[in-house]
């Protein structure tokens, strides 16, 4: 028997031990495939969450909301004539909105320009925000905006989506950390778009509530216009949470005005805010 040496790539043969796909092509095929699956999965689950939230009975919502409480109880709650005045305002707006369950307003003595809604019907307003506003209508819009979040059940929606994201990331973290790094920002982008669309929906509803209460939507943009002029002075770091997922103030003022025009709401004279 004769010894016959042979090389893997001799006589223009291809090396049979390796695949001859273009690595870049493989990357793009795999990447687009995986991203498409994740995107579609996220979208479908999002639709499921929306469906579930829309059909959830009020009692279940209350039950879920009971799980929430402020991790850091507000220590500087203000209870005076002014907070009572805010309560009354909230009550009137609530009647216009037609929210079935009781809403609670807490005024906290904090310098930050902020207001937020906690699941279960609690709205927290910081005095920093009150000092920023001159008209009752401006404040009413902010409150109506938070009421709209309750009405649209946006807490439940974002919570449901949070669960979906957690599930998805748990599924993919097992594979490779690199993949997680790539996919999570993509989902976060989708998440930001979702929450911005919820903000716009809440604005639209808030305008309707404002129009119902005062008969016009004057002062609706006061808060955001105020933020704009304020932002010119300070380099916009004070308003942490309220600003992050909210569409940029300038664009928002325009959108609110546009929404008001589309709905045919009148802009009338504003009522001055009670002195604090």
């Amino acid at each position, binding site marked *: *028997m004769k*010894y016959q*040496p042979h*090389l*893997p*790539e001799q006589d223009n043969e291809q*090396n049979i*031990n*390796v*695949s001859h*796909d273009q*690595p*870049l092509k*493989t*990357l793009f095929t*795999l*990447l687009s*495939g*995986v991203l498409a699956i994740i995107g579609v999965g996220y979208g479908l689950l999002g639709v499921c969450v929306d469906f579930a939230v829309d059909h959830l009975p009020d009692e279940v919502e209350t039950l879920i909301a009971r799980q929430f409480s402020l991790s850091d109880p507000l220590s500087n709650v203000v209870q005076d004539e002014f907070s009572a005045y805010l309560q009354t305002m909230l009550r009137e707006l609530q009647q216009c909105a037609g929210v079935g369950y009781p809403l609670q307003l807490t005024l906290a003595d904090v310098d930050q320009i902020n207001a937020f809604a906690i699941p279960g019907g609690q709205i927290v307003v910081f005095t920093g925000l009150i000092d920023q506003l001159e008209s009752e209508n401006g404040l009413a819009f902010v409150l109506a905006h938070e009421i709209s979040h309750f009405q649209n059940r946006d807490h439940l929606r974002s919570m449901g989506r949070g669960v979906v994201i957690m599930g998805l990331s748990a599924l*993919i973290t097992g*594979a*490779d*950390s*690199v*993949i997680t*790094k*790539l996919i*999570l*920002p*993509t989902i976060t982008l989708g998440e930001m778009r979702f929450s911005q669309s919820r903000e716009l929906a809440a604005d639209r509803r808030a305008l309707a509530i404002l129009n119902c209460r005062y008969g016009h939507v004057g002062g609706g943009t006061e808060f955001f216009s105020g933020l704009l002029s304020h932002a010119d002075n300070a380099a916009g770091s004070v308003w942490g949470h309220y600003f992050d997922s909210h569409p940029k103030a300038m664009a928002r003022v325009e959108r609110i005005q546009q929404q008001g025009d589309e709905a045919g709401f009148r802009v009338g004279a504003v009522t001055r805010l009670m002195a604090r």
Partner: protein
Amino acid sequence: MVELLIFLVLISVGYFFGQRSEAKHFRSIRARELELMGLITHNGKHPLGVDQLGTVTESRLVYGSVVISVDYFKGVVAGLRMLVGGNLGTYETLVDRARREAVLRLKESCTDAAQIINLRIETSAISKGNQNQVGSVEVLAYATAIYTQ
């Protein structure tokens, strides 16, 4: 967004340098394999053509080993591939390079041998299982070199 940017930079660097060094390595492997083609190398226990071999004066354990690292690009493609299954093409070239380089190093260590017999190849993964570390592969080739008069 920043994470995405870092990812893009890393993957481009991985692709550019990884593919360049791989192509260069394959060129070098082909040239050296051709050069050492005449050196009889096989995995049988006994030398070939004992009649013409002459007197064996020496037999020696020879080995060649190499460690080659995965680049970021290969790692990402493989990570994606592991989600759906299939050939890990980017790792196939890596292991092929390592195997051939190890055998070449073995041959280069005993170019004046009459034959190399009993060739064995072993592969092991280095830094396997650690998610934050780039994986690499070690290939060890070992054989018996036979010297004649």
